């Protein structure tokens, strides 16, 4: 994948978040505070603005710019979590103008490790981690880049759906205890959208 494709991925994700803004707000209203769609939409618009104002060519620099834009504009838990994801992905791909599947997998792994360290969530806590971990496993199976990206998006979708019966143990949803059961996690949903956008633009 080229650095221009990575930029297309970010732009595509921004569009998808905008399209799904109401759905993300609805999911977050059920078990959180109802701001996930609004915040991510605001943050991704800032991220795209930042990319459009800079020259491309360095995937690491672009991903770090996206991370900083999210950290300074999203707020909530999603700001530090997605911000950390992109900052760490950027560090892992610093100076690169293209990535193969191994490079992409390494970047995603660094990002997911950053999210785990920042949010301290475990699998099964009903968070975005429940979408990220199966997606990362799917990437590690290797093979053709396009197929691997498609597999990881499908795995994230499964992971996202699997959050519905879980009882939340992190974030505001955890305050609901058993009442969080039966609702799909908004963070896992935006993670799925991010990886679906990756499969559509990076393969």
């Amino acid at each position, binding site marked *: 994948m080229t650095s221009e494709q990575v930029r297309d991925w970010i732009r595509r994700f921004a569009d998808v978040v905008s399209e799904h803004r109401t759905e993300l707000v609805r999911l977050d209203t059920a078990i959180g*505070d109802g701001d996930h769609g609004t915040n991510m939409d605001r943050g991704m618009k800032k991220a795209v603005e930042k990319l459009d104002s800079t020259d491309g060519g360095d995937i690491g620099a672009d991903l770090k710019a996206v991370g900083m834009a999210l950290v300074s504009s999203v*707020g*909530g838990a999603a*700001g530090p979590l997605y911000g950390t994801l992109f900052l760490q992905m950027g560090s892992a791909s610093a100076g690169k103008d293209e990535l193969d599947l191994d490079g992409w997998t390494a970047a995603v792994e660094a990002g997911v490790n950053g999210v785990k360290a*920042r949010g301290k969530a475990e699998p099964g806590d009903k968070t975005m981690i429940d979408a990220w971990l199966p997606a990362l496993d799917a990437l590690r199976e290797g093979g053709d880049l396009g197929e691997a990206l498609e597999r990881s998006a499908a795995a994230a979708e499964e992971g996202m759906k699997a959050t519905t019966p879980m009882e939340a*143990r992190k974030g*505001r949803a955890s*305050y609901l205890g058993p009442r969080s059961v039966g609702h799909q996690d908004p963070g896992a949903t935006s993670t799925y959208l991010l990886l679906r956008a990756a499969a559509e633009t990076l393969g």
Partner: protein
Amino acid sequence: MSVKTMKKLINAPEDVVREALQGMEAAHGDLIRVSYEPAMVVRADAPVQGKVGIISGGGSGHEPMHGGFVGRGMLDAACPGEVFTSPTPDQMLEATKAVDGGAGVLHIVKNYTGDVLNFEMAADLAKGEGIEVEAVVTNDDVAVQDSLYTAGRRGVGITVIAEKICGAAAEEGKSLGEVAEICRRVNGQGRSMGMALTPCITPAAGTPSFELGDDEMEIGIGIHGEPGRYREPLAPASQVVERLATAIVEDLPYESGDNVLAFVNGMGGTPLVELYIVFNELNKFLSGRGITITRHLIGDYITSLEMAGCSITLLKLDDELTGLWDAPVHTPALRWGV
């Protein structure tokens, strides 16, 4: 009464936070200055040389917390986020720099995942710039019981009291470590619980944060429009207070002979007449257990937009904390002794 549609005195949802800050700036320019990129409310004479700086922050929609508590004897700066959304690390870093008078800066952080994560990133950034920062996370909400399997108890009413008491300690010239220790002590000796009669509507969402029947109330709510732990049929104020106060008193526990500060807080849509009824019931309840209210605070101080309901916070007092509570404070929302 169920509130299903948004009726608000606003111009546009996306302008709510900025326009409210402009109003504060216009009204209270003698006490505070306001900046917008990034958004923060800073004490007019900051930084005060040699004094520990104290900042807090959180989503907007809880007014007067936190911006209304900026001024002499309380906060040096507040970082407002979007409505019910944590502020961001760049705001907190700028606020930290703006109030650092060379004695370090205390971050008072409510235990909500977003607030904690953003303040952690901000503290890392501030330390990188050579500013000494301590953070104290408040977590006084007894409605959250199972803290091992949740994000932990939320920081609610005690935050207001901690900001007042720590502000007074900083004015006395106490060190960063001493002010932080007092903050932890206040948090450790404070407990809260809240309830709602109606949900609230965030301007951006436009619809209620949860559904509540006409004959129901929600017990154990937080301050961000999130639902509580359970709901019950409406009950008289005496029973509501007994429900909240029992959970609070038994948790610490508060015991016969204790002196307490009792804070009866309105959630934004409850009239003062009802808060005084709640205070009266609370006073009777505590008297019956041999607990004496020696200081009180009654009114809307940590709100949840237009939510109807209340929260009760108790702080076990000693002479030092009582003295710090009584010390002069001059902010837009709290003012005495000046």
